């Protein structure tokens, strides 16, 4: 066996980060973690905070599970994973409450719902249980980044069309409104998040034919 250590950013490790951004995106391809993805996408700011929280929880719990993966009895692994995730989420929730209270209020129960976010269980089960800490960390970062990108795209369109702002700043000039332009109130309502996401999936699959479902 080759005892030489693999470099930290070997091509295999880089792939762990880049692949979830496109061809194996957790939301549009693996269909994980949709629950919390959509409810927080009315404005970009809460979506961004949510994305950062998921990234922190996913990367750290991936590392923790990967460190203790050899000592977890397989029968109770789900409970162990849930405990690790829940502990991380409590930390994130307390930090959000302390530093960005307003946004934490807007996110309401959805911070708690990171616990049952399927991305976490899915990645812990599929990757961290069988890999070393460093690749697991990268896998966590990559998947959370793929999740964040979709979250930000959806919230970008919903905020732009629904409230005429981006990141809280007005981008649609006042003169448009005097010509009779109006914000599309429908975009703020929950169902539009699903339709925007459906369209994103459509565009992605039209560009990447390999992802098209045959049945």
């Amino acid at each position: 066996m080759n005892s030489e250590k693999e470099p930290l950013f070997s091509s295999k490790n880089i792939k762990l980060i880049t692949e979830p951004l496109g061809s194996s995106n957790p939301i549009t391809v693996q269909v994980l973690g949709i629950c919390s993805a959509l409810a927080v996408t009315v404005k970009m700011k809460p979506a961004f905070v949510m994305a950062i929280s998921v990234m922190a929880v996913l990367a750290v719990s991936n590392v923790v599970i990967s460190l203790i993966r050899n000592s977890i009895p397989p029968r109770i692994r789900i409970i162990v994973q849930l405990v690790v995730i829940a502990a991380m989420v409590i930390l994130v929730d307390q930090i959000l409450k302390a530093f960005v209270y307003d946004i934490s209020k807007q996110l309401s129960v959805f911070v708690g719902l990171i616990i049952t976010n399927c991305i976490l269980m899915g990645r812990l089960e599929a990757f961290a249980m069988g890999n070393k800490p460093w690749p697991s960390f990268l896998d966590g970062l990559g998947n959370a980044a793929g999740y964040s990108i979709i979250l930000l795209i959806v919230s970008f369109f919903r905020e732009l069309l629904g409230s005429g702002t981006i990141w809280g700043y007005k981008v649609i000039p006042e003169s448009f409104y005097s010509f009779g332009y109006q914000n599309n109130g429908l975009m703020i309502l929950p169902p539009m998040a699903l339709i925007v996401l459906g369209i994103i999936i459509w565009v992605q699959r039209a560009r990447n034919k390999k992802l098209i479902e045959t049945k």
Partner: protein
Amino acid sequence: MENLINIFVKSVFIDNMIFAYFLGMCSYLAVSKTVKTSTGLGIAVIFVLGITVPVDYLIENYLLKEGALVWLSPDFADIDLSFLSFIIFIAVIASMTQLVEMIVEKFSPALYNSLGIFLPLIAVNCAILGGSLFMQERAYNTLGEATVFGLGSGVGWFLAIVGIAAIREKIRYSNVPAPLKGLGITFIITGLMGIAFMGFMGIKL
């Protein structure tokens, strides 16, 4: 009584778990291929929500809330354990699903055979934890209200998944653009169903 009916109607139609909060989307998308399996999962969700929400209500009010421990001793009046709620709720849900699975297996093998595979899946269904967290946030006054809210949310979820499953069974024979097949069209249909459900928002309760 009127109050309970209001809460029920509100949680089924207006605050529908799927269309208004997107909770339980993962199993909603994965299991909604046929009406039969989605009916099974839907009933299991009603069942588990109807049990976990009242149990979590009792835990919240007699253990976790600020001043909830007064029944033990007046000295505990200013202890606030609510930061523990996530971890305790998820533990309750995981153990309740396990317990329900064992009870159903023992007393009703027929029901177990139809629900069996879905029960363990439910422990990580966001709708269940979401139900408990909404119960905490909205601070229902009595155990009855919390129970009705849990059952109502379950019924709303059931309606949504059976509806989408019926539509997906039909849409298999229609000519959907290739990149939109499967996931894409399911999202768009769910969105349209959500818009239809928003018609209930006008109801003042």
